[in-house]
C-alpha cells in the first residue's frame, strides 16, 4: 500500500512538472484568466453604466417634477456577474482539460515511456491516479487564480465585498468546474491512448467538445419557444410565469424532446447546476443551498457520473496492453 502511494505521488509530481512547463497549457491558462477578467469587468462596467443612466433619468424626472414615476434602482447581484465566467469555463475550461489529457499521453507515447512504465511492476490504477492527481493540482491552481480574479474584480470594480455565503457558493462553482474540466481531461486521455495518430485523437476530441459544449446546448436553446423573439416570446405577449407553464404543459412532448437533447450533454448539467448556485436562474437567486440542491442534485449527480465513467473508461483502455503496445 505504501509503495502504491509513493508511486502515485511520483507520477503525480512528474505530471505536474511536465504540464506546467508546456507552452500550450500556459497559453490556454493565460487566455482563460484573461477571459474571466474581461467577462467580469464587462458586467461590472455594464452595471455601473446602468446605475449612471438610472441616476441621470432620476434627475431628469425630478427636474420635471415627476418624482412619483421614478423606477426602482437596478440591483447588482455579484454572483450573477459570473455568467460569462461559467460559460467561458464551459468552452475554454473544457479545452484546457482536453489539452492536459492530450499532453499527458502524447509525451509518453512520443518517447515510448508508457510501454516502459507498463512493463515495470506498476499498477495501471496507480498510473491513472497519478496522472489524474498531478493534473488535478494544475486545474485547481488555474481555477483558484480565476476565483481570486473574480473575487477582487467584483470587489474592486463592482464595489461589493462578497459575504461568506456568496464565497461558499463561489467555491462550489469552482469545485464543479474542476469536475467538469477533469471529465474532458479523462476523455482526451482515453482518445490519445486509443488512437494511433495523436493528431487524429486531438481532432476527434475537439469534435466531441463541439458536440457537447456548443451544438447540443445550441439546439436546445434555439428550439425553446420563448427564445423565438428577442427578449422572450411570453414577455412580449404579457404572459406571466404560471400562465406560461399552463400553456407549455400542452406541448409536453416537444418540451420533453428538447430537454432530453439538452440533458445528453455534460455541459448543460454543469451550466444548470452553476446557474442555480449563483442565482443566474432567477428562481434560485438569494436562496439557500438546501433549496438549490433540492432541485439541482440531479445535475450534480450527472456531472459527477460523467467524470467517474470517463475515469474508469481510461483505466479500462490503459489496461488493454495490446492496444498500448501494438496500437490496434
Amino acid at each position, binding site marked *: 500500500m505504501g509503495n502504491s502511494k509513493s508511486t502515485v505521488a511520483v507520477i503525480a509530481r512528474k505530471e505536474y512538472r511536465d504540464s506546467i512547463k508546456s507552452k500550450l497549457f500556459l497559453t490556454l491558462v493565460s487566455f482563460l484568466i484573461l477571459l474571466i477578467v474581461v467577462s467580469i469587468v464587462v458586467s461590472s462596467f455594464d452595471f455601473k453604466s446602468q446605475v449612471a443612466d438610472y441616476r441621470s433619468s432620476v434627475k431628469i424626472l425630478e427636474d420635471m417634477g415627476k418624482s412619483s414615476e421614478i423606477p426602482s434602482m437596478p440591483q447588482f447581484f455579484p454572483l450573477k456577474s459570473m455568467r460569462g465566467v461559467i460559460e467561458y469555463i464551459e468552452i475554454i475550461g473544457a479545452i484546457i482539460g482536453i489539452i492536459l489529457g492530450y499532453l499527458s499521453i502524447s509525451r509518453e507515447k512520443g518517447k515510448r515511456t508508457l510501454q516502459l512504465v507498463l512493463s515495470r511492476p506498476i499498477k495501471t490504477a496507480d498510473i491513472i491516479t497519478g496522472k489524474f492527481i498531478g493534473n488535478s493540482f494544475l486545474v485547481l491552481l488555474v481555477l483558484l487564480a480565476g476565483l481570486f480574479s473574480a473575487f477582487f474584480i467584483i470587489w474592486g470594480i463592482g464595489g461589493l465585498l462578497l459575504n461568506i455565503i456568496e464565497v461558499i457558493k463561489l467555491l462550489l462553482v469552482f469545485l464543479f468546474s474542476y469536475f467538469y474540466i477533469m471529465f474532458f481531461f479523462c476523455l482526451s486521455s482515453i482518445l490519445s491512448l486509443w488512437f494511433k495518430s495523436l493528431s*487524429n485523437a*486531438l481532432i476527434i476530441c*475537439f469534435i466531441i467538445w463541439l458536440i457537447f459544449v456548443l451544438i447540443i446546448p445550441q439546439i436546445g*436553446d434555439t428550439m425553446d419557444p420563448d*427564445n423565438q423573439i428577442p427578449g422572450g416570446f411570453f414577455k412580449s405577449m404579457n*404572459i406571466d410565469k404560471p400562465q406560461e407553464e399552463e400553456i407549455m404543459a400542452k406541448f409536453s412532448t416537444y418540451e420533453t424532446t428538447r430537454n432530453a437533447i439538452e440533458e445528453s450533454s455534460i455541459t448543460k448539467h454543469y451550466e444548470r447546476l452553476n446557474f442555480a448556485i449563483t442565482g443566474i436562474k432567477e428562481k434560485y437567486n438569494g436562496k439557500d443551498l438546501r433549496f438549490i440542491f433540492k432541485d439541482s442534485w440531479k445535475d450534480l449527480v450527472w456531472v459527477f457520473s460523467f467524470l467517474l465513467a470517463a475515469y474508469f473508461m481510461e483505466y479500462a483502455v490503459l489496461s488493454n496492453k495490446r492496444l498500448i503496445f501494438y496500437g490496434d
Partner: protein
Amino acid sequence: MWKKILSVSRNEFRALFKEKTFILLLIIFILMTIFSTYIGWSTKNTIEKVYQETVIKLKESGASGIPLDTFLIAPALSILKNMIVYIFLIGSLLAIIIGHFSFMRDRIAGISKIVFSRTISRKEFITGKITGIFNVLALIISVSFIISYVSIILVTGHPLSGNETIKLLIFYLISLAYLIIFAMLGLFFAISSRSESLALVNPIIIWIIISFVLPQLTSALNPSALLNPVSIQGVAPHSRFFTIIQEVIKPFSLSENYKELGSSLLGVGPINTNTLQIIINNSAGILLILSLIGLLIYGSIFSMKKFDVCEEEVDG
C-alpha cells in the same frame, strides 16, 4: 507553372478526402445542414401553435391589444436561421482543420523537406495548396446549398422564388468566403508553428476570440446567447460603455458582421426584400471578410517563403 499548381491542388483535394477525421467532421456538418431545416421547421410550427394557445389564454382573461402573429409572415428562408450558427461554429472549425491538415500532413510525412528539390517553387506549391483548399470548401458549400434548397422545398411544400434563391445563393457565397478565412488561418499556423498541437490550438483560440470575445465586448451578450440567431438580432447597446465599445470594435468583429449579413439575407429579424439593399447595407462587413482573406493568403505565402525546409521532426 499552372500545371504544377493544378497538380498540387488535385493532390490536396484527394488527400483530404482520405482523412478519416475530416470525413467525420464533414458528415456532422452535412447532417447539421439537414437538421437545420428540420429544427427550423419544427420550431416554427410549435411557436405557431404556442401563439394560438397564448391568444386563447389572453382572450379568456379579457385582454385587449393582442400582439400580431409575426411568425406567420416570416420568410421561408428564415427556417434556415440555424445554418448561420452552424457555419460559424462547425463550418469554421472544419475549415481550420482543412487548412491545418493541408500543410501539417506534409510536414509530418517529411514531404515539405524534399518537395522543393523538385522543379516546383514555394509559391507554386502554396498556391496549389490554397487552390485545393478553395475547391474542397466550394464543394462542401455547394452540397450544403443543394441540401438547404431541396429540404426547404420539401418542408414548405412550394418552390423558392427567384429572389429567395438569389438570397440563399449569396448567403452561401458569403459563408464560403467566411470559411476560407478560417482555412487560411489553419494553413498559416500549420506553416509557421513549430509544434503540431500549437498549430491546431492557436487558430482555435483566434476562432474563440472572433466568435465569442469580440461580440461580448460589443454587446455584453454571453457566449451561449451568441449561438441563438434570434438573441443576436435583439442586441442593442444598453449603456454608454457598450455604445462606445460597439462603435470602435464592431466594424472589425468578423463573426458579428457575418451573422448580421446572414440574418438579413435569410430574413431573420426585420424583413428586407431588396437583396441589393442588403448587400449595400452590409458592404463594410463584406469588405472586412475579403480583406482578411487577402491578408491571410499573403501571410501564408510569406510564411511559406520563410519556412525552414531543413527542420527536424515537427514537435507533438
